[in-house]
């Protein structure tokens, strides 16, 4: 498509602008050129890591969402569909309730990965598995883990607040290490999924079709799931389960550029990043740092409804 290149260039410019602008916006209210004491500290060690972490996490979620939607042949799929978010939530809740909030990201990451592994092994038990089985197993495991999280909330006592905030997702504690870590996950996994673009295209018409077109469908499926799991587990461990970014961004991108995943994946990096950075800046600047998941859902859900209303069909 001829508009692909200009749109990608515009999105790249928008992404850089967003990162720069949002780094200079915040409750402390520094201007672009500020000599106030501590300004450099706040911008360099608090805002910039947070903005970058939000960008990379948003990008990760959007890319994983696009991959999941193609793999499951379902535009309503989101990155958490196989239980990553409830697994992460369970890990984080266990850390909060039993370890006094130590190692929450590590536990969340382990929880997310364990959830996926359980889903894979249950769905793959018979050798041949279909994406439908995978999807249903994911939903079942999610519900089960959510039940345990609910139980932990019920017995958590004073920690309820902490768990609930974690569940809604946010970047309060984003450190430079988080920014680096999320980039280190996004770059290889994002590249992997980008290279899987045409496999994703074929898979989105069905695994059998993909096989008939000469694609190793089983290997492609596991590669896509593996890459997405890394992205989502990383995102969940850094920022909790932030909703809607992974669902809505692929739709925005497909509206702009069509459904070819070789284009959708890179564009999702930009759109997901921009969306989450703006949402996070809004909450930390104007909403006394509410969980950013509230903002994304608040913007994302009406946007999604508008999208369905406008198009009358999915992209």
């Amino acid at each position, binding site marked *: 498509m001829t508009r692909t290149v200009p749109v990608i260039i515009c999105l790249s410019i928008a992404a850089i602008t967003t990162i720069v602008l949002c780094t200079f916006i915040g409750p402390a209210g520094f201007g672009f050129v500020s000599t106030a004491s501590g300004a450099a500290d706040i911008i360099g060690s608090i805002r910039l890591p947070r903005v970058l972490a939000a960008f990379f996490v948003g990008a990760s979620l959007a890319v994983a969402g696009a991959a999941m939607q193609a793999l499951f042949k379902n535009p309503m799929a989101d990155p958490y569909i196989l239980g990553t978010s409830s697994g992460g939530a369970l890990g984080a809740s266990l850390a909060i309730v039993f370890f006094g909030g130590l190692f929450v990201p590590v536990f969340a990451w382990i929880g997310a990965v364990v959830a996926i592994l359980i889903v894979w092994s249950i769905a793959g038990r018979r050798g041949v598995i279909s994406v439908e089985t995978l999807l249903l197993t994911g939903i079942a495991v999610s519900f089960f883990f959510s039940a345990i999280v609910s139980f932990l909330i019920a017995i958590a006592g004073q920690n309820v607040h902490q768990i609930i905030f974690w569940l809604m997702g946010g970047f309060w504690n984003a450190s430079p290490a988080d920014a680096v870590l999320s980039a280190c996950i996004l770059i290889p996994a994002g590249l992997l999924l980008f290279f899987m673009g045409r496999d994703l295209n074929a898979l989105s*018409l069905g695994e059998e079709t993909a096989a008939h077109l000469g694609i190793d469908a089983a290997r492609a499926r596991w590669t896509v799931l593996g890459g997405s799991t890394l992205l989502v587990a990383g995102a969940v461990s850094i920022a909790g389960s932030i909703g809607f970014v992974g669902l809505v961004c692929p739709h925005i991108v497909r509206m702009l550029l069509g459904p070819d995943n070789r284009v959708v994946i890179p564009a999702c990096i930009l759109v997901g990043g921009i969306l989450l950075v703006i949402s996070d800046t809004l909450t930390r600047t104007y909403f006394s740092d509410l969980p950013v998941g509230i903002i994304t859902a608040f913007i994302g859900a009406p946007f999604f409804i508008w999208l369905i209303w406008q198009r009358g069909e999915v*992209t």
Partner: protein
Amino acid sequence: MTGRDRISAENLHAGYGTQDIVKAVSCSFAPGTFTGIIGPNGSGKTTLLRAFSRVIPSGGILELDGKAVSDHTPTELGMALGFVPQDEARPFSYTVMQVVLMARYARTSRLGSLMPEDYSRCHQAFAQTGVAHLADRSIRTLSGGEWQRVLIARALAQDTKVLLLDEPTSHLDLSHQSEILSLMRDLAESGVTIIGVFHDLNLAALYCDRLIMIQNGQMVADGPPAQVLTPEKIRHVYGAEVVTSCHPATGRTFLMPVKTQNGNGSALSLMNVQVISGGGSGSDLMRFLAGKGLAVSAGVLATTDSDYLTATALEIPCIPVLPFSQIPAHALEKLRTMLAKADKIVLSVHPVGTGNLPVLQVLRDMNPARIIIHLPEGRDFASFDFARGAAVTAYHDLRTAGAYTATSYEEIVAFLRADALRKPQR
């Protein structure tokens, strides 16, 4: 198995889970052949096709170009086998062009851009299937028939030596059906091996040079359409009554379903009825009675008589004789034996000359209570007499002796039914 075969299967088993749907199928397909796989619903046709395209696991030996299918890489298979599914999910709004270009994935490197020849192959496929005008449309806006043609275009653009088609014309209208199947015929003639699952037996017979009939996952017939599509095999495999014939225009076998004998416990189905007719007067009657489930037999019929053609097509026994000649004595003797076995005799009033007058004389020897004369309303015997009054006399004699006269087919059946219901009480 010869080295020349594109695909050969030996003792092939395939299915879903633990159950085999396809059992012990052995067959091979040479280059340049168009084979139809036929069989009733649920017989395993599509499963067999999917086993050939290795998307479902199979047991036994399956070779492509003399090499086990499992030894081919997915890319090699993508270049060797094209598959047209019955339908395909369309969750995203790809353009027709994007979907058809996917056919070239197997021939290009992962990020390698497409070459001009890839595009020209796709445009050729568009032209062959008549979807060129749809190239920029979203696939979600296509009708079922348009989408099916796009799927066929994609398989063509794959440029494979084998094409597997799963009911490729199920969504197509008449003209597109013949366009697509003629295209497949041409491809077969240019050396492509085509294997298609067909629901429509006439289409299969018209375009395929070989048919494989499947029942319960096993091959029950394999050969040219004329040998596979026999009424006996169709009855055995489909449980349906058909008549087959060689189409005068195409020279190919074709078949027509006839009303299934829905015995529904009616006493009629046990009844033997002999129809005596001539000059085409009995054709409709035989069809009507056979359709009611009666065991019908016919009388002496000249081989040029349309009644004779109807009787043969319906597999109704009759006594064929040469046209325009005296009925030989042995034919009359045979008629006597047949009449003796029949429960009822329906005499369809027909033109009688000196040639066929002896038939009426044979009838005069029968018990008139077993005879029903069918005289269409408003007609009289005289208009059927070409024997200078002898025929009128013969017809009248039968009636006065006590034969029942009916003016419509319904009346005949009502009479037969009443008689059949009386019988068991005797």
